[in-house]
């Protein structure tokens, strides 16, 4: 779906106005969370909380620096399940308490992330926008993740398959 959109606008972005359009290098996510805005802000902005949910499944995090002011540094290390450490460095660009967080991911890939939170009574809507430097970089990163994801699913499928096989063998 996204690609169809990209294709539709290729001419515009590539031939007419290279810089004006961002649709082919961005990702938008949103989620209504069942918690008040204060709590969402807290779990996003306090190192002891964000370390508990950031990063891919199975990873743990060490937050070294999280200076939430414009120009402030955010340095965290994600520890993969296999023991590999992934260094992550970002710089905060804009902070509006209980409303908005903008940071620029300084390690590869370069991403400008804008997180907006909106109060909806006891619920909170979170809008997450990620803008890549270029369409090329976006596709490259998407491809890498897609491949890893595919690989992971294959391994999971294989594990399930082998388990069945083992059970059958036992029964036989």
């Amino acid at each position, binding site marked *: 779906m996204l690609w169809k959109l990209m*294709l539709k606008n290729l001419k515009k972005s590539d031939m007419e106005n290279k810089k004006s359009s961002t649709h082919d290098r961005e990702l938008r996510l949103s989620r209504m969370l069942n918690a008040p805005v204060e709590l969402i802000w807290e779990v996003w902005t306090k190192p002891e909380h964000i370390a508990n949910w950031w990063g891919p499944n199975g990873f743990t995090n060490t937050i070294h620096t999280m200076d939430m002011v414009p120009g402030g540094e955010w340095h965290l290390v994600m520890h993969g399940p296999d023991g590999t450490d992934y260094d992550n460095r970002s710089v905060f660009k804009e902070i509006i308490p209980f409303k908005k967080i903008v940071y620029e991911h300084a390690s590869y890939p370069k991403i400008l992330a804008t997180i907006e939170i909106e109060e909806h009574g006891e619920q909170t809507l979170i809008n997450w926008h990620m803008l890549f430097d270029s369409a090329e970089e976006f*596709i490259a*990163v998407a*491809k890498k993740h897609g491949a890893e994801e595919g690989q992971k699913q294959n391994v999971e499928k294989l594990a399930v398959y082998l388990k069945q096989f083992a059970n059958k063998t036992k029964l036989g």
Partner: protein
Amino acid sequence: MKTRRDVYQAIADPTRRAIINMVAGQPHNVNAIAEKFDMTRQAVSLHVKILTDCGLIIIKQRGRDRFCEAHLQQLSEVSTWVEQYKKHWERKLDALETYVEKLKKERYGK
């Protein structure tokens, strides 16, 4: 059919994306494509060849002319990657949601 080049390589270049865009609507004469770009005919031919190699376009001979036709089914591969990458981020939101629920239980006992 196994393609010799991957689709990513094909669409990584702005000229090739522009060529895909041109032929996506209707087949174009190879010469007509070359005229649209501010580069040598040889350079455009190379781009067309890369697109042909990875199966995104096919060349059909019509009389004395050669026409480029789009063959875009392969591009679904790209949207699959993007979808999977999006899922990776959706899981981050899942983790946030789970953590918030846990925190709520700890603090308010509900």
